[in-house]
């Protein structure tokens, strides 16, 4: 239990450190963060009003105190560009990102686990010699380039899938839930999810294969053969079951990382997610929005890192009992 507590405390410290780094990064940069959004024809007074509105006329340490205080209340400030609360803007697009990420990860990990297990059983054959460089190549390909290939072929050449967005422009839905469960949404989801899944499957596949090869050397696998069990049942119940443990951790880590890593895929497919919102905000100097999006992405990453650590303890009886 103390292990879990310590991990949680560390998680909060890391979050606080990242929030502070981010604050410094945005405030200590040369130039006034508002220049992009204040009309040059403004008078000095008008400018002062706008600066005051965003709290930018206060000394740095006061700004920091307010910033941290606001964060604790889940308050992320006002977007320069939309003149709307950042938190609301982000929460609006967050489900799109989470759905895209989860869909892709689930496909990637199911495929990766099965593929890795099969590949382990095929070790030393030509199947392995061909497959491994191919899998490595999918990891070596930039995600956005994979996305461009899929778009060029399946959206433009064949016209099977829409070329961007999460729903058809102008489509109306009775509720947010109806929107994300609609066939239209799913149709739009196929290409970006496929792109991400192709990129993501390599890690679980190679991990699963390596784990399987290691587990297959274990004495308890030999024992299972001596017990007269069939090869497939041994591979499933013993080899795969043991090899899967690190994959669960990798899934949690992968989830944390790909919410932020989605940036390029969301941009290629004009997917209205948090990554694309971050890119747009950075490009248009909307610092509060960029900061908020960044923080949320970081929070998901940090929380998932902690979850991965703790999951490992829960799933592996050896670790679970050693820890308490």
């Amino acid at each position: 239990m103390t292990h879990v507590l310590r991990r949680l405390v560390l998680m909060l410290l890391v979050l606080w450190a990242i929030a502070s780094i981010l604050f410094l990064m945005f405030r200590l940069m040369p130039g006034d963060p508002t220049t992009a959004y204040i009309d040059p024809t403004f008078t000095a007074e008008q400018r002062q009003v706008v600066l005051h509105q965003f709290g930018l006329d206060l000394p740095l340490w006061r700004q920091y105190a307010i910033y941290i205080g606001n964060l604790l209340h889940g308050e992320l400030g006002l977007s320069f560009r939309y003149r709307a609360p950042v938190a609301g803007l982000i929460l609006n697009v967050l489900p799109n990102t989470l759905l895209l990420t989860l869909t892709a990860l689930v496909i990637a990990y199911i495929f990766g686990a099965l593929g890795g297990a099969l590949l382990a059983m095929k070790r030393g054959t030509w199947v392995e010699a061909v497959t491994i460089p191919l899998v490595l190549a999918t990891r070596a390909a930039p995600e956005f380039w994979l996305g461009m290939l899929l778009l060029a072929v399946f959206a433009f050449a064949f016209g099977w899938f829409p070329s961007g967005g999460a729903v058809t422009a102008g489509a109306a839905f009775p509720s947010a839930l109806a929107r994300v469960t609609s066939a239209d949404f799913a149709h739009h989801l196929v290409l970006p999810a496929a792109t991400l899944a192709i990129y993501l499957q390599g890690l679980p596949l190679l991990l699963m294969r390596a784990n399987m090869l290691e587990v297959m050397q274990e004495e308890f696998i030999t024992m299972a053969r001596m017990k007269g069990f069939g090869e497939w049942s041994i591979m499933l119940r013993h080899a795969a079951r043991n090899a899967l443990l690190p994959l669960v951790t990798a899934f949690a880590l992968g989830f944390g990382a790909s919410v932020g890593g989605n940036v390029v895929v969301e941009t290629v497919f004009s997917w209205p997610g948090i990554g694309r919102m971050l890119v747009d905000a950075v490009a248009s100097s909307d610092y509060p929005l960029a900061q908020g999006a960044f923080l949320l992405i970081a929070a998901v990453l940090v929380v998932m890192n902690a979850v991965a650590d703790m999951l490992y303890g829960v799933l592996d009886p050896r670790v679970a009992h050693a820890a308490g």
Partner: protein
Amino acid sequence: MPPAETVALAAPRGLAWRRLPSLAIVKPYATVGIAIYLVFALIALFAGRIAPYDPLEILFAPDGQLAASLPPSAQHLLGTTNLGRDIFSQLVLGARPSLAVGITAAIGVASIGTIVGLLSGYFGGLIDTILMRLADVVVGIPFLPFVIVLAVLLHPSLTNIVLSVALLLWPNAARVIRSQVLTLRQRQFVEAARMSAASELRILLIHVAPNVLPLSFLYASIAVGWAILTEASVSFLGFGSADTISWGYMLQDAYASQALSRGQYIWFVPPGICIVLVVLAGFLVSRGYEELLFPKLKD
């Protein structure tokens, strides 16, 4: 893009790096990787002589028309872009920034990781705690978003991309090297050096550091690919250096010129393949090298 290459924590065989030259011979995958590296290194080195045109020059046909969107021909091996630039020349010169970013970032990652790992593992105590907590924080920073924000705040350039890659990717290397140092500290030759009252710095540099270099090299070889992919992604998102022709820039240019809807595969397939080849070469080399360092992982 998580730097999630998993590396076993087993101690590498002593002085495995002496066997480095045998890497190419023993591991066929690594041989292919090294061959790809060599080819691209030669291309980058002689890019000026290989490329028939200036990659940024806007070309015109003899009749004065803009030589835009030409299909591949003897004159333009891979055709021209929307703005009438020679794609083959861009591709050849694009090898330079990609390799430069990859190699410098790799050196950066390996240097920071090695120094932090050495200090943390050897001195322990408060230094260790501070450095390892710092590593925890860095691991919590989303990689690509950070690179983008830093690129914009510091102004887009290759140097800043290298800087942000180096700043974010060192913790994995540092953690593994640290635990290696911890086991080395227990070894007899380090103990013996202590007894003979050698200075701490001398022990660290002469007795400990050489033994973690193989790991430094492993993490450097992993970082090459990440850095190249990062440069491409950042360029694609439009936060790249504006005056450098890189493969990422070419992809961004193609995307912005509607290559996808116009079916101009020649605009974006070749640079993508180049990125895949170079990054793949890095993976192949590091895999082969890892197997050499940790023979247990060998199947």
